């Protein structure tokens, strides 16, 4: 993070909070698939959902240093909530989204009390345990969740009564993108605030933060709840746009995937996570199309290559590149 002169933390934050042209270009580019690649809108909508999920993990991992191997618990909880609400007759997407977010956020709040008390390996195992337990519970409660077969009978009503979810994915991508953008704005504001600075302090040196009197546990609980809520919203968007939910939304595979996407893109930068999601999802789609049986191999090589060459993830590599070109010019 380069800052010229620091005239005080508030000024520094204000400088960072200004929108750079690269950011504006990025968000405009997300509209391109509508025009350039209308056949790929469904893939694009799932990339947007993944990006939102990665964003929620970035908030706790990249900014507060909480490594979670069970973040899919909140994603899945949001997905099932939205699905069940729709199945029981209320298919309005926006309110369904809010309800899912609240439920996931509430669970995030409850579990944050446990999470805030541990670090490192114990924390990783506890988050893993939470995810696995929730998945088992969902399997057992098949009267509610549909069990292995998945939730049936989800029907999402058209947004605002007009935009119905079509086969080509126009509405799906538009919806997912809009949700992603709005929440991103909120997350950006949050991380570039004093609270965001405090989180980074906790990530880097929790003891020191406590020594200067920061309420670290309360901060961790807050960000964990928020991240849970956002993950739940991402899950809800998935449930609403695909009208399917099954046990794997809570699974270890999903938690591992989102972690990989975040580290690949670069944690702690917000855009890193988005980039990681885009690259991973698109690479997976391409490799899987080329070589359905062994695409794992190429993804594995990609991950190893990225870690060897780009220690701060793809985004770290990109910012290094831009810094070098700026210095060279």
């Amino acid at each position: 993070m380069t800052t010229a002169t620091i005239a005080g933390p508030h000024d520094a934050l204000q400088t960072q909070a200004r929108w750079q042209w690269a950011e504006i270009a990025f968000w405009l580019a997300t509209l391109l698939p509508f025009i350039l690649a209308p056949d790929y809108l469904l893939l694009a909508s799932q990339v947007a959902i993944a990006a939102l999920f990665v964003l929620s993990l970035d908030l706790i991992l990249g900014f507060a240093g909480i490594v979670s191997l069970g973040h899919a618990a909140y994603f899945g909880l949001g997905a099932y909530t939205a699905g069940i609400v729709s199945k029981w007759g209320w298919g309005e997407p926006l309110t369904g989204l809010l309800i899912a977010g609240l439920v996931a956020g509430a669970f995030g709040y409850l579990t944050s009390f446990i999470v805030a008390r541990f670090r490192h390996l114990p924390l990783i195992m506890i988050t893993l345990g939470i995810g696995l337990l929730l998945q088992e519970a969902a399997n057992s409660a098949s009267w509610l969740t549909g069990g292995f077969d998945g939730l049936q009978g989800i029907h999402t009503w058209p947004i605002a009564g007009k935009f119905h979810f079509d086969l080509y994915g126009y509405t799906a991508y538009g919806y997912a993108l809009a949700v992603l953008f709005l929440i991103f704005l909120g997350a950006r504001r949050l991380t570039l605030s004093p609270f965001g600075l405090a989180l980074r302090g906790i990530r880097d040196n929790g003891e020191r933060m406590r020594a200067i009197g920061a309420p670290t546990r309360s901060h961790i609980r807050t960000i964990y709840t928020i991240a849970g809520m956002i993950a739940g919203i991402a899950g809800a968007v998935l449930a609403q746009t695909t009208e399917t939910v099954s046990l794997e939304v809570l699974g270890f595979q999903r938690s591992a995937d989102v972690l990989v996407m975040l580290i690949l893109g670069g944690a702690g930068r917000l855009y890193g996570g988005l980039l990681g999601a885009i690259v991973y999802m698109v690479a997976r789609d391409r490799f899987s199309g080329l070589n359905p049986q062994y695409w794992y191999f190429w993804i594995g090589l990609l991950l190893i290559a990225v870690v060897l060459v780009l220690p701060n993830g793809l985004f770290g590599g990109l910012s290094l590149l831009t810094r070098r070109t700026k210095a060279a010019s």
Partner: protein
Amino acid sequence: MQRLLCGLAGCALALLGVEAANAQDAVKIGLIMPYSGQFADTAAQMDNGIKLYMKQHGDTVAGAKIELVRKDTGGIAPDLAKRLAQEAIVRDHADILAGFVLTPNALAAADVSAEAKKFMVVMNAATSIITTKSPYLARTSLTTPQLNYTLGTWAAKNGIRKIYTMVSDYGPGIDAETWFQKGFKDAGGEIVGSVRFPVANPDFSAFVQRAKDSNPDAIYVWVPGGAQPAAVGKALAERGIDASRTKVLGQDALTAESALKSMGDQALGIIMVANYDYNLDSPTNKDFVKAYNDEFHRNPDFFSVGGYDGMHLVYAALQKAGGKTDGDSLIAAAKGMAWESPRGPMSIDPETRDVVQTVHIFKVEKVGGELRNVEIDKVPNVKDPGHKTN
């Protein structure tokens, strides 16, 4: 904003329309299966069955060339399966969706089949409700109730009075347990106890001991394919259950080839119900097994035959519909279709669009020094009893 969207949609559709006009001479089939991941072997077998059928019958039907578009779901991923089905139709212009090893994926893709009005052939997924999700869907594999209800009835009528059931605690396992118990009780038998094991269970000894404690005439086991059948077989033997005295009953995967190799002689006497096994003694099957071995150097299983017969249905339906590829024509042609398959005579029920076939009962015996599933009984023309309650 809405007008802009509509405009864009209109342009896109126009573009698609132009493309579609040129693609009339090929009939594309979107094959959606878990080509990678833990179910990859089942997809490989199914794909082999499809390839063999096409090799034997050529790749042209009713004047059109058949093209396969393969898409990988990687395992249980209904959101991905749905997207792949949509992409197959929208991007690749597939007229038919086929494959489907796993129920959640089949259910998700069925929604697409219903909305886009495309013919869909399910070649493995075995849950009853799948065929109700789309009026354009036909199944050529089996249903769990079809096999297990038959086995339950057979068991009660063949000298087993008290049975203990053990199944995996998830959809298909619970399905199997429900229908087996129903068949068994309807025919006068008594269930002395039951237990469900966790899905990814590595160690069965505790459950086997519970079964042993209740002293049954027989034990019914249902586990998914993979590592578990052999592990269960070994656990049964290790806890002292002799399959030739306390009968062990199960469904197809329990005595699959690899499971038998791992269990060894401990598997002798296990009774199994299936719609197909490569040991079936009929000329049609013998030819099929020989051709399969020549081509792929391994024996076919019920996944292979699901794919093989699925392709037969596609070809026959296209033929009967005179080359028309829309959903209504194809499903109308498919209803009531009957033919002789390597598994025996089979047909597609015109009301439910589900498979009607002979259910075989096998026993593990030593034939020529090797362990094989030998057919000891069969029940012809079994419809899916699960539909009666729908």
